[in-house]
C-alpha cells in the first residue's frame, strides 16, 4: 500500500470529496441569524462550504438545520488501533459441538439487566429461546444452561444468584446510559466481585447499544458486545475463554 492510500476522508460520490451530512438544533428562533450560526458551527467543525439545505422552527426559541459540506479532516488508518473481542466466531452448531468435545458438563450462563435499568430487550435477545433477528438465544443451546434474571436486578442479587446457580459466565446488559449511569453501575459490580474475592470465578461479559469491547476491558470485564452482536458471538467468546481457563475442561 502506498503511504497516501492510508489517509482517508468521508466519501460522497468522488474519492476524497469529504462529503458529510449533519443535522442539529440551535437554541435560536428560525431566521437568517440561525442559518448563519449553523454554517459557522459547521465551519468550526472543519466542514468546508457548508450548505444549510433545510431549516425549520422547533418552537419560538429553537430551530433545526440539515447541513451538507466537505470535511477538511482526514485520518491515517495505519495509525488507528481497534480493540475487538478478537476471538473467532462460531455458529450455534459449532459452539454446541465445541462444548460437547471440550467440556465435561454443561456451562452455566446467568444474565440480567442490572441497577435501575428496566430494559430487558438486550439480555432477552442474547438469552431467550427466540433470540433476535433469527439468531436463537442461549437458552436454546445444547450444553448451555441459561438463566435470565430479567431487569432491574441489583448487583448484589446478581452475584448471589450467580453463586447459587454455580455460574461460569455472567452476562450484564445496560441500555440506559443517560449521564453515564451504566458506568457507575458496571464499576460497582466489578468492585463487588473483587471485594468478595470472586472475580476469578466467572467470565463476566457486558453488552448494550453503547457498549464496546474497549470500554469493557477498561472497566475490568472480560469482554463487551455492542449492537449487532448475537448469542453466537457471546457464546463463541465465552466457551473459548472458559476452555483457556481450564474450567470444566475434559482431560
Amino acid at each position, binding site marked *: 500500500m502506498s503511504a497516501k492510500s492510508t489517509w482517508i476522508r468521508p466519501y460522497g460520490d468522488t474519492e476524497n470529496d469529504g462529503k458529510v451530512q449533519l443535522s442539529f438544533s440551535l437554541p435560536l428562533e428560525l431566521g437568517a441569524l440561525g442559518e448563519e450560526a449553523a454554517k459557522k458551527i459547521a465551519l468550526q467543525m472543519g466542514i468546508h462550504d457548508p450548505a444549510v439545505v433545510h431549516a425549520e422552527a*422547533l418552537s419560538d426559541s429553537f430551530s*433545526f438545520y440539515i447541513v451538507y459540506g466537505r470535511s477538511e479532516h482526514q485520518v491515517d488508518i495505519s495509525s488507528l488501533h481497534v480493540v475487538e473481542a478478537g476471538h473467532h466466531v462460531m455458529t450455534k452448531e459449532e459452539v454446541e459441538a465445541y462444548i460437547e468435545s471440550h467440556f465435561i458438563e454443561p456451562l452455566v450462563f446467568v444474565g440480567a439487566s442490572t441497577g435501575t*435499568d428496566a430494559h430487558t430487550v438486550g439480555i432477552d435477545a442474547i438469552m431467550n429461546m427466540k433470540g433476535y433477528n433469527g439468531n436463537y438465544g442461549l437458552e436454546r443451546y445444547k450444553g448451555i444452561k441459561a438463566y435470565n434474571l430479567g431487569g432491574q436486578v441489583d448487583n448484589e442479587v446478581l452475584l448471589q444468584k450467580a453463586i447459587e446457580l454455580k455460574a461460569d459466565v455472567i452476562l450484564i446488559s445496560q441500555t440506559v446510559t443517560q449521564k453515564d449511569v451504566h458506568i457507575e453501575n458496571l464499576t460497582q459490580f466489578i468492585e463487588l466481585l473483587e471485594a468478595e474475592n470472586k472475580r476469578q470465578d466467572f467470565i463476566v461479559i457486558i453488552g448494550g447499544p453503547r457498549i464496546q469491547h474497549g470500554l469493557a476491558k477498561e472497566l475490568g470485564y472480560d469482554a463487551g458486545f455492542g449492537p449487532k452482536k448475537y448469542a453466537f458471538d457471546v457464546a463463541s467468546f465465552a466457551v473459548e475463554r472458559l476452555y483457556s481457563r481450564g474450567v470444566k475442561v475434559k482431560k
Partner: protein
Amino acid sequence: MNNKLNLNQETIQSCRKYAKDIADQMQRFIDQHTTVAVERTVLRLLGIDGVDEFGRPLVNAVIDHIVKTGDLSKGISHYMGYAVHDTEETPQEIARRVAAQKFDLSIYTNEGRCPYFGELMPFFERTLARVDAMKNVRSSWIDKTPKKTTPSKYVIVATGNIYEDIKQAISAAKKGADIIAVIRSTGQSLLDYVPFGPTTEGFGGTYATQENFRLMREALDQVSEEEGRYIKLVNYASGLCMPEIAAMGAIERLDMMLNDSLYGIIFRDINPKRTLIDQYFSRVLSSYAEIIINTGEDNYLTTSDAFDHAHTVLASQFINEQFAKKAGMKESLMGLGHAYEIDPNMENSFLYELAQAEMAREIFPHAPLKYMPPTKHMTGDIFKGCVQDALFNITAVSTHQSIHLLGMMTEAIHTPFMSDRAIALNIASYIEKAFKDFGNEMMFNPDGIIVKRAHDVLQHAHELLQEIKDEGLFQALEKGRFAEISRKPEGGKGLSGVFVKHEIYDNPILDALKKRVKEGSHER
C-alpha cells in the same frame, strides 16, 4: 363500527365472559385486602401533602408509624377519624405531629369501629372539589378544541429535568403533538414513596411528583392557549405508588395515566397481590377524575415475539377491560395498549400488523386504543427507522387508532432530541393528512391473509382466556402466560405492604368514590 374482518361475535362475547370471570375471582381477593399505598392515598385525599424534616413524605410517615406501632389492617381512616375528632385539628396538622413523633396514633388501635368518619368527609370533599374543578376545566377545553377523526399524536419527553422537559414539550406541542407524556426516572416504579417537589434529576426521565405535574400542566395550559387546542398531559401511575400517583394526577389535571393491572407485576417484579389491590383504587380514582388510563400490553411484545404472542395482548386487553369495569370506568377512558412490533424481516409483516390493529379496533370499538410504535426492531439505522415508523403511522391512521404514540427514528440510540420529535411529528402529520380517509375505503379479502390472521389471533386469545379462567390469574402469572415471565403470588417487591382487612376495616373515602362513580353523580 363496521365489521370488516367478519370476526365471530360469539367468540368475542365468550372472551368477555371468561375475562369477567377472571376479574370477578380476583375482585373477591382485592375486596378483602388493603395496602400501604391504598392507605397513603386515603391520606392524600384528606389533604395531606409535604414532607418531614428528613424529606420523607408525611403520608409515609403516618402509615409507617401505624405499621410499626398500630394495626393498619383496621385502615388509616379508623385512626384519622378518632384523631380528628379528639384534636379538632386538620389531617395535615395531625400528620405533621405524627411525623415529628409528637402524636402517637396507636392509642386508637384498640378502640371499636370508628364512629367519626363524618368528621373526615369535609377534608375529602375539599380535595374532591378541586378534582371536580379540574374536570370542568378539562371538559371546557375539550369543547373548545377542534374535533378530528384521526388519531391523537402522542410524544414523550424524557430529559431527566422537569425544566428541560417543559421546553421540549412546548416544542412538541407547537409541532402538532396532541398529547405529551413525561417519562419517569427509570426505577421510580419501585420506590415505595412519591418524591416531593420539582426535580431536575433522574435517568431516562425525571420523577413523577405533584409539583412536576403542576409545572408541566401550567406550561401546557399556556401552549394550549396559544395553539387554540387542548394539549393533554400523561404520566405514569403503575408501580408501588399506583393509587397515590393517580390521586396526584387527579388533583393536578393529568389527562391520561399509565395504569395497568399487570404491568408492574410482569415487568417490574412487583408483588402480584400488591399490584392488583393497588390498581383497583387507582382505577376508581381515574374513573372519578375522568383520566384516561393507558394499559401496557405493548410491553409483552418487546419481550415475546410479536407474531407468535399477539393473542396474549388481546387476552390481556380483555382482562384489563374487565378490571376497568370493576372500577366503574367508562369505555371512553379505557386506553387499552397494543403495538407494532413484528420483525420487519418477516414477509407480509405489514399485513399482519394491519390485521391486528384493525382487530383491536373492532373488538374495542369505543376504547381510546393506545397504539405503540416499533421499538424492538429499531436498529440505529435512523433512515430505515423513519420508514418503519411511517408504516406504523399508516396502520394507526387507517385502522382508526385513538392514541398514536409516535415512533422515534433514534429509538435504541438515545432519549429523543427535540429535533427527533419534530421529525416524527412532521412525518406523522403528513401521513395523517395523506391517509385521512383511507381506512374507510379499505375492504379486506374475506379469504385473505389479513382476515385469517385476525381470526387466528382471536381464537388463540379465546383459548388462553379459558385456560386463565380455569387456573386463576395468580396461577396464570406464575406460569408465565404473559411475556413468558413467571411471577409468584408471594414473590416480588411490596408484599410486606399488603394487609388482610380487619373486620372493623373501613375505607369511607373509597366507598364514597365508588358510590359516586356508580351513580355518575360526578358527571356534570
